[in-house]
């Protein structure tokens, strides 16, 4: 099978691959700004309502949050091992990572259900949660917005990984052009970094005050 030609605007395959990687990093830089607005809101309101935020943090599910963090970190390892392999092993790594991603989302769903049962959802029923300090409801608005946006990113990542696994199983990356795998892994690891940042803010800081 002959190697496909690079697109017209590129000097060679290396130039095309480097441009794709640079493009993904530029997208990730814009994603930093996207999530940093949310983090700034958290910082401002935490500064304004420290007691309400601390009370709210104590009601989050530390067990599920920690297990999910471990799952995500492991998924990044599995995918990074896939990036340095090929063919069937690469396909298995992409599938394994997607599986861990689905596991994360399922656990997140279980956590949402438990939160719902404890009335930890902003709105009229929030008063029944027992959290009366001002700011606690705001914390839960941040919680659902941040984890919801993160979950959307995860779902997109799982879809990408399934496509990569399918293509890898068909030998699409055996010819040498592995750009799609590298770029997909960059996106997945970034989503991992976002969660590592959210985890202490949602589950830890304020728990023991």
């Amino acid at each position, binding site marked *: 099978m002959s190697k496909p030609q690079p697109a017209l605007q590129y000097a060679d395959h290396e130039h095309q691959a480097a441009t794709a990687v640079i493009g993904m990093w530029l997208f*990730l830089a814009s994603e930093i700004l996207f999530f940093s607005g949310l983090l700034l809101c958290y910082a401002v309101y935490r500064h304004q309502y420290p007691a309400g935020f601390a009370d709210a943090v104590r009601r989050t599910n530390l067990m599920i949050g920690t297990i999910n963090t471990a799952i995500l*970190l492991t998924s*990044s390892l599995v995918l990074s091992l896939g990036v340095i392999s090929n063919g069937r092993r690469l396909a298995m790594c992409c599938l394994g990572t997607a599986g861990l991603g689905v596991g994360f989302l399922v656990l997140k769903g279980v956590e949402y259900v438990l939160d719902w049962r404890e009335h930890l959802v902003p709105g009229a029923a929030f008063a029944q949660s027992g959290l009366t300090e001002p700011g606690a409801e705001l914390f839960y608005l941040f919680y659902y917005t941040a984890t919801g946006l993160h979950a959307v990113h995860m779902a997109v990542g799982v879809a990408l990984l399934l496509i990569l696994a399918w293509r890898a199983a068909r030998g699409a990356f055996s010819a040498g052009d592995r750009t799609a795998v590298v770029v997909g892994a960059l996106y997945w690891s970034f989503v991992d970094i976002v969660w590592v940042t959210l985890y202490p803010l949602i589950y830890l*800081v304020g*728990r023991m005050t």
Partner: protein
Amino acid sequence: MSPVIRRVLGWAGLMVLLFVQCGAGLLPLGGFAMPVALLLAVAMAAVIALLFMEMWQSPVVARIFAFAGLFWLLILFALAGADYLTRTIAVVIG
């Protein structure tokens, strides 16, 4: 060291950091709780970026974009923080 072993060791390091972070979150650290948690989060993010994302092996322009993203984050927090942390609450009597 082979790339596989390096990655597995990095993952083990991340698990240790997660364990320490979770443990620190269960200690009454008072005002130190946020800096400690964030420091550990930054360490974990650095391991992911350097080892799993191979940031240092990326093209120079890609690294510039990565640092630009962090610089924008710094500007956002510095300017907003300058307002909120120095704002004077004026009490109106009457």
